[in-house]
C-alpha cells in the first residue's frame, strides 16, 4: 500500500477533518452516524470509481448518473413484473452495458470527444428514463430485494462491502492487467499507444462499459435502499463524483490517478457533508464549503509542488551540481 506524496497530503487532510469533526460536530462519532455515513458513501464511491477510469483516459462521462437511473428503472421494472431478483438485476445490467456500448461506440470508433458525446447521451438516457416512467417512480418490490441495500454484515453495511470489493477489483484491473495499463498509457498519449500496437478502440469501449457497470452497481444499491426506481435518483452525484476524483489526484488531462486517491476523495466529501449537516448548517453553506475545499486543496497542491520545485532548484544550486539538460 504505497502512498504518493499527494495521497499522503490528502490522507492528512482527511484525518485532520475527521479529528476536528469528531471533537466539534455533535454525535459525529455516534454509532448511528458512522453507520449512516457507511451506507451513504458507496453510491457516490461507485460512481466516482467509474468516473475515475474514464477521466484517466482523458475523457469524461457526464451520462454516468443517468445510466445509473435508467438501469435502476430497468431493475425496478423487472422486479415489478415479478421476476426473481437476479433476473431483474440482469435486465439492469443489459441496459447499463447497452448505454456503455452506446457511449463507447461513438467515442472510440467514430472519435467524438467524450464531453460532447456524453452531454448528448446524458439527455438521451434521461429522456428514455422519463419516457418509461413518465416521471413517476416504480415501486412495490419484494421484501427480499431490500436486503441488498438495507442489511449489514456485523457493523459494516452490505453496500459498503460492495464498494470496498469494487475498489479492490478496480485497483487490480488498473494496475495489473493489460487493459488497465493500456488505459493509463492511452490516457497520456493516445497516438503513441496506437503506434505501439495497443488496440485503442477496444480498450476505450471497455472503459465506458466498466463505467456503466459501476453505475449499475450504484443503481442496484439505490433502488434497494429507496425501495423504488425513479429518474432523478443519484442525479446529484455527477459533479460531486468528478470533484471527488479530481480531489483524489486524478489528472483531468489523463494518464494518472489511483483508486486510493479517489477513495480518500470520496471519504473527505462524505465526512464533510455529514458533519456539516450535524452542525445544522444551511445546505447552501455545505455546497459553498464543498466547492471551497476542492479549490483550497488544488491551490495547496500547486503551492506544495511549486515549493518543492523551488526547494529542488535551491538544493541544486547549493550543491553546485549542473542541472541536467532538460
Amino acid at each position, binding site marked *: 500500500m504505497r502512498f504518493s506524496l499527494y495521497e499522503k497530503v490528502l490522507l492528512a487532510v482527511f484525518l485532520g477533518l475527521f479529528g476536528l469533526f469528531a471533537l466539534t460536530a455533535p454525535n459525529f462519532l455516534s454509532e448511528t452516524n458512522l453507520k449512516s455515513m457507511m451506507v451513504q458513501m458507496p453510491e457516490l464511491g461507485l460512481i466516482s470509481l467509474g468516473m475515475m477510469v474514464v477521466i484517466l483516459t482523458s475523457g469524461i462521462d457526464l451520462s454516468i448518473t443517468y445510466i445509473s437511473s435508467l438501469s435502476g428503472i430497468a431493475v425496478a421494472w423487472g422486479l415489478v413484473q415479478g421476476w426473481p431478483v437476479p433476473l431483474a438485476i440482469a435486465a439492469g445490467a443489459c441496459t447499463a452495458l447497452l448505454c456503455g456500448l452506446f457511449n463507447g461506440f461513438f467515442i472510440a470508433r467514430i472519435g467524438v470527444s467524450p464531453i460532447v458525446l456524453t452531454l448528448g447521451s446524458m439527455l438521451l438516457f434521461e429522456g428514455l428514463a422519463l419516457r418509461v416512467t413518465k416521471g413517476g417512480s416504480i415501486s412495490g418490490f419484494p421484501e427480499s430485494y431490500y436486503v441488498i441495500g438495507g442489511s449489514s454484515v456485523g457493523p459494516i453495511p452490505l453496500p459498503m462491502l460492495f464498494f470496498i470489493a469494487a475498489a479492490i477489483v478496480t485497483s*487490480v484491473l488498473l494496475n*495489473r*492487467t*493489460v487493459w488497465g*495499463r*493500456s488505459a*493509463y*498509457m492511452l490516457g*497520456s*498519449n493516445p*497516438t*503513441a*499507444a*496506437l*503506434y*505501439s*500496437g*495497443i*488496440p485503442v478502440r477496444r480498450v476505450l469501449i471497455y472503459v465506458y462499459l466498466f463505467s456503466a457497470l459501476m453505475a449499475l452497481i450504484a443503481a442496484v444499491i439505490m433502488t434497494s435502499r429507496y425501495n423504488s426506481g425513479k429518474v432523478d435518483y443519484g442525479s446529484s452525484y455527477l459533479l460531486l463524483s468528478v470533484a471527488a476524483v479530481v480531489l483524489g489526484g486524478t489528472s483531468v488531462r489523463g*494518464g*494518472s490517478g489511483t483508486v486510493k486517491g479517489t477513495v480518500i476523495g470520496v471519504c473527505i466529501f462524505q465526512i464533510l457533508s455529514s458533519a456539516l449537516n450535524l452542525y445544522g448548517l444551511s445546505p447552501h453553506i455545505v455546497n459553498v464549503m464543498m466547492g471551497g475545499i476542492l479549490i483550497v486543496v488544488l491551490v495547496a497542491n500547486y503551492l506544495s509542488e511549486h515549493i518543492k520545485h523551488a526547494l529542488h532548484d535551491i538544493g541544486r544550486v547549493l550543491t553546485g551540481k549542473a542541472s*541536467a*539538460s*532538460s
Partner: protein
Amino acid sequence: MFGIETADEGEIRLHGRKINPRSTTEAVRLGLAYVPESRQTQGLVLTQSITRNLSLSVLNRLTNKLRLIVRKKERQLAESFISKLDIRPALADMQAGQLSGGNQQKVVIGKWLASSPKVLIIDEPTNGIDIGAKTEIHKLLRQLAESGMAIIMISSELPEILSACDRILVMRRGRMVGEFVNDGVTQVDIMNKALLGAPVSSLPEGGASA
C-alpha cells in the same frame, strides 16, 4: 503497411505470404515494428517511465496465468534493454520525457526489439540527435540487419542512407522512380532519379521480400 491507415491498393508480402494489416495490433502480431518519425508525440509516452515505455508493445507476454502483469518480468525486460542499448541515465523509473534525444530514440527502438520483430520500419532514425548517439544507432541497426532482421529505413539524409543501407529505393510522389544496389552509388545518382526519373514500370520479382 503498419495498419495505421488501411492500404487502398497494392500488395504486401511477408515471407511470401500476402498480408494486409488493418490495425497496428495486427501488424505487431504479424512481426512488423515501426519507429515513427516524431519520437516525442508518436514514439514515446513522455510522462510515463522508461520501463512502461519499453514494455508497451509486449504487455501480453508479461502476464501470468491469471493474465495479470508480473512486475518482476517487466523490470527484467526493461533492465536488459537499458543495458543492451546503453540507455543513460539507467534509471528504469525515470520519465521518458527527461531523457536526451538519443536516449529517447533508444527507448523507442528498445520497445520494438522487445517484440522481436521480423521487419523493422524506422522513419528518420537520427533526426535531431547528437552525433555520438547517431553513430551508436547506426551501429545498432547494422548489428540488427546482420542478425537477419529486415530493416526498412526511411530518411531524407542521403549520407545516412549511403552509409547504412544495402539497397536503396527512390520514390517521388508515391511512385518508385529508381533502385540501386549500394556499391559505389553517389548522392548525385540518387538525386537525378529523385528529380527526373520516370516511374519504374515494375519492380524486379524479389520485391520487398525479406
